[in-house]
């Protein structure tokens, strides 16, 4: 295989691609339309499309135009330079996650979640835990092999610890939105220290928009999730982590 490739339209190396986009330009009459298409071609050229062709123009309301454009990409893909962000766990479908939990644990995986301390922002924990979910993915409650206990907001760390013990939690999730005076870091440290001596110690997972995911070890927790995390990522991580623990 060559280390340099181009997109494939219908002939090797033709580089042909299709894109569609909208510009904030009117295309109601012929003059406007001609101008808008000129603008679309300019954008296509700057996107690296050589000899671009506008094959479809449509006015969307009085102020916008939608285009479908074909062209030859002038860029090359250098395969030796392809970067793939490593993820320490594979993203799995719900059925695979359920299967893996069943194989490894032989029972349901118990997740206890809360917004701890004074934080009343349950948006994050609810998006991850509620069946309703987030970003088109169902929350952890949806997984047949998980049992989810969502304690809601303003839960104290001792209350979380005792409930986690009572439920035999495999994982404890906390969500922190408030960052004033580094409250989110303090909460994560408190989580780590509270459960440090627990035996067996549940997986400690922290989520919130202002965390640095590389700080997990420093804060004494197992995993940090940041802005944009979906329930499927958390579920995949949990399935992976319990498998790794069982294998260790």
């Amino acid at each position: 295989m060559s280390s340099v490739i181009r997109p494939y339209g219908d002939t090797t190396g033709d580089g042909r691609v299709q894109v569609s986009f909208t510009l904030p330009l009117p295309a109601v009459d012929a003059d406007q339309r001609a101008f808008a298409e000129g603008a679309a071609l300019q954008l296509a050229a700057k996107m690296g499309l050589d000899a671009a062709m506008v094959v479809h123009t449509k006015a969307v309301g009085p102020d916008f135009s939608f285009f479908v454009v074909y062209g030859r990409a002038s860029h090359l893909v250098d395969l030796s330079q392809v970067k793939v962000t490593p993820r320490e766990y594979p993203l799995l479908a719900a059925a695979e996650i359920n299967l893996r939990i069943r194989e490894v644990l032989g029972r349901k995986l118990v997740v206890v979640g809360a917004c701890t301390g004074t934080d009343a922002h349950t948006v994050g924990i609810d998006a991850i835990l509620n069946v309703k979910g987030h970003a088109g993915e169902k929350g952890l409650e949806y997984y047949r092999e998980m049992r989810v206990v969502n304690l809601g907001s303003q839960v104290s760390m001792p209350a979380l610890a005792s409930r986690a013990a009572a439920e035999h939690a495999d994982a404890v999730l906390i969500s922190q939105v408030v960052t004033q005076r580094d409250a989110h870091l303090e909460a994560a440290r408190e989580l780590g220290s509270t459960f440090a001596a627990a035996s067996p110690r549940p997986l400690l997972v922290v989520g919130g928009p202002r965390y640095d995911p590389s700080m997990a070890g420093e804060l004494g927790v197992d995993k940090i999730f940041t802005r944009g995390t979906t329930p499927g990522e958390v579920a995949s991580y949990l399935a992976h982590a319990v498998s790794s623990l069982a294998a260790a």
Partner: protein
Amino acid sequence: MTGKLGLDPAKVTRARELARWAGEPITRLAQTHTTSSIERAVLRLAGLEGADADGMPWVNRLADAVADSAGLQHGVALPVWDALATGDYPDLRSLAMAAAGGQVKFRVPDGAAAVAARDGALREVGAGIARMDEQRALRSAMIADLADPPKPWIYLIVATGDIYEDIPQAQAAAREGADIIAVIRSTGQSLLDYVPEGATREGYAGTYATQENFRLMRAALDDVSRELGRYVRLTNYASGLCMPEIAALAGMQRLDMMLNDCMYGIIFRDINPVRTFIDQRFSRQVHARAGIVINTGEDNYLTTADAVDAAHTVVVSQLLNEYFGHEAGLTDAQLGLGHAFEINPAIPDSFLLELAHALLVRELFPDAPLKYMPPTKHMTGNVFAGYLLDAFFNLCTFMTDQSILLTGMMTEGIHTPFLSDRDLALENVRYVRSAAGRLGGSFVPDAFVRDRAHQVLDEAVGLLERINREGLLTAIAEGTFGVTKRPSDGGRGLDGVIKQADGYWNPAEEELS
């Protein structure tokens, strides 16, 4: 029953009877309890607006103060209007401010004091209900003056988080052909135990439902309705912990439709079942009076369970929603029962199965403005295949005479729709309507479609029989709907459920029922 499916009328009657029996104990529960949000809705109808410096609405402050001193078991009205009549407060807001400062000692009045409190409460709450009546009349007048678009009504969603961005998007959508604009709420609003105040510009994946946001959007749609010569409807959500209050705000601000399901909050938001059913009854009494069409959420069951296996749970939920809706005073024309096109397209004959389900719902509820939801679960990111699937959904909508068509987006599940996604989606609807809008008239279902519809109805009757043996709350606790178990003493908001004491009085319920 003279439908294409040849449904057995006795079986349909039996299904309705079973739904009624399952629902009646719940209705009795709702008749003997109130909730903190119902009591706050009374204060909202009386015109109490605004919030303290922390953004907590005065209705919460006042209701909490009454709960702390006199309790809410007699209702909020008697203690509040007694305090107004006997104290030195020019209006409800002054009373609320004083009460929030701990300066008011509330009591449950009796004798002449009770009569005075009732008179005051009826006058002020009555003004809110009169406002809803005026808005209902205004809606009728506008529809008569302009035009009511033919069904199916085209339903489009906007959701930027910023009401001032939503407005031009909603107006653009109406100009492009939308008959109904739905403003999706901010993630998590259903779990807030208060309704935020004022115009809002920040939300998570949606815009907060507030009285001012309702007013601004309805005014903008009135403008565009006049421009287009057809009445454009506005939809929001009366759901979550503040369902009764939001219903009252919707009635006073002339929203036209409200998402309002008897079980959605329980199943998908883990709101306490008892709280939900009590709040739901009051909110539906409000909607009935305000002329609001409710939209129910059965489509959601099919996003968690398999759309073939769980088809009958949709019908069961629709029958329950119908019973609870009728009991609260809604007419058939106000029951926008929901369902969805969510069968895996890889299954052979999937479109025939969709036709069977959609036709079954149409024939079971001939006078209800059914709300049909597009595919979401099997939209894969292949936007080209998604566009085709949406076209089949549109075709099924027209072939089975659905009433409200929620416009499917080819980019479902990828991002909030681009301007061009909406335009392409409407082009899809227009093409199918123009090419095959009358196909339903010449479509005769074959034995496969008829048998499937009969099977779903049989399974629905079977499930309703089981629910009657167990009780609805037990069935919900055992995970009958949407695969999630919701015990009746679990979930959020149970602390806001209050058993009515002897002498409980609610001026709004007196006017509404």
